[in-house]
């Protein structure tokens, strides 16, 4: 499905990461694997440091911290926010929407739209599409898109498939009108028939959490996990990304009349370094144009990893100048989405720590 948007732009990106840092080497003794194999995993996947919240920290805490930071520095005004979109899979509660909790905690105006969007690792691009659609309305001048997850709280420390790559974090992206006649192209695809590749089986209404769903089970390959935990079929996801993402981006560039060479950076969701380098190889894109260094510093925190790749790698470049960027997100759902835009002239592009 294709989208295009005129005269709209991203005007600022802030990322919020927990100050609490963990190291792969310190934690690998939790896994039932020989140390040499765990070190091999570290080397191949690029696992090293990651940032995790303390057990009681929620997405709204990270979001409020980031928005207060912007308000205090005059980078954003409370009253100019016409819509607040929160993309998360770890809401504070089932009811009410976490976006409303954030609105209330910050004392934002009533004349606005708050919307929770349940999307996984493609959630930055999906959230941007929703923000841009809202800006088509006369009454919507400025949209705040928040991406955040604290899913480390739902992973088993004894599951080597997923625990060493998980990170937590949030991002705040301001989307507004552009005075220049700019155009943003986007496309996305979804395949719900493959939804089991990434899921938390228990805890919803289909299978409520109970003492049974909290029991750690041997799921093969010496990994232990409960039904309350996030599970990922790593090889199915790898296969999905390598098969579906290159043609998606190819089609996006073709519909925009662009080529690989006209794109300065391919900014992707950051599952791990291995998967991104294989993707770059397949697309014949040099590694320097596709950053893959977020996981080794922060872990994979879901849909906020893409903006983290932006603030970590391109902050100065995007404040003082512009780049042609292709964004790509892919993950649970399954969902894969990409977007081509001129990004730059940002009024803020930075990362802060949540204490």
């Amino acid at each position, binding site marked *: 499905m294709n989208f295009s948007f005129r005269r709209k732009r991203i005007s600022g990106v802030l990322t919020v990461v927990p100050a609490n840092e963990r190291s792969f080497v310190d934690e690998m003794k939790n896994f039932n*694997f*020989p140390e040499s*194999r765990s070190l*091999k*995993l570290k080397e*191949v*996947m690029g696992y090293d440091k990651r940032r995790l919240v303390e057990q009681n920290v929620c997405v709204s805490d990270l979001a409020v911290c980031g928005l207060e930071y912007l308000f205090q520095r005059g980078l954003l005004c409370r009253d100019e926010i016409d819509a607040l979109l929160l993309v998360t899979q770890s809401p504070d509660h089932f009811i009410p929407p976490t976006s409303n909790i954030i609105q209330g905690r910050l004392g934002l105006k009533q004349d606005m739209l708050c919307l929770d969007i349940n999307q996984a690792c493609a959630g930055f691009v999906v959230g941007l599409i929703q923000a841009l659609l809202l800006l088509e309305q006369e009454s919507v001048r400025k949209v705040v898109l928040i991406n955040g997850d604290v899913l480390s709280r739902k992973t088993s420390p004894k599951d*080597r*498939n997923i625990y060493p790559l998980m990170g937590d974090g949030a991002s705040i992206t301001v989307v507004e009108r552009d005075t220049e006649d700019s155009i943003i192209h986007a496309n996305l695809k979804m395949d719900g028939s493959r939804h089991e590749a990434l899921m938390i089986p228990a805890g919803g209404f289909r299978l409520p959490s109970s003492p049974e769903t909290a029991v750690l089970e041997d799921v093969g*390959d010496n990994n232990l996990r409960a039904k309350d935990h996030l599970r990922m*079929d*790593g*090889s*199915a996801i*790898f*296969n999905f990304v*390598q*098969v579906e993402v290159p043609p998606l981006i190819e089609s996006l560039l073709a519909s925009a009349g662009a080529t690989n060479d006209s794109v300065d950076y391919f900014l992707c969701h950051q599952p791990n370094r*291995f998967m991104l380098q*294989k993707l770059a*190889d*397949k697309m014949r894109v040099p590694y320097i144009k596709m950053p893959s260094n977020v996981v080794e510093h922060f872990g994979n925190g879901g849909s906020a990893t893409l903006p983290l790749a932006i603030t970590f790698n391109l902050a100065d470049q995007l404040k003082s100048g512009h780049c042609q960027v292709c964004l790509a997100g892919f993950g649970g759902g399954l969902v894969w989405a990409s977007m081509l835009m001129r990004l730059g002239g940002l009024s803020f592009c930075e990362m802060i720590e949540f204490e």
Partner: protein
Amino acid sequence: MNEFLKKIASILEVDDVKGTDEFKAFPQWDSLSVLSVIAMLDASYGINLRAADFGPIRTAGDLWNLVQSRKGS
């Protein structure tokens, strides 16, 4: 097939692998190796396998036969 076996040996971190060698006999044969093999088959042979496809595969020769049958299709 020689080239293929060399690539498998490199993933398993051994000097050489024979077609009759069973994957399970190698201590390095784990989910990471499976993923590495999947990535290698994609990059070198343009074949996309899933971990589930490895179910009936016991030996390196079995995998080579699967690669051959997928290439033909």
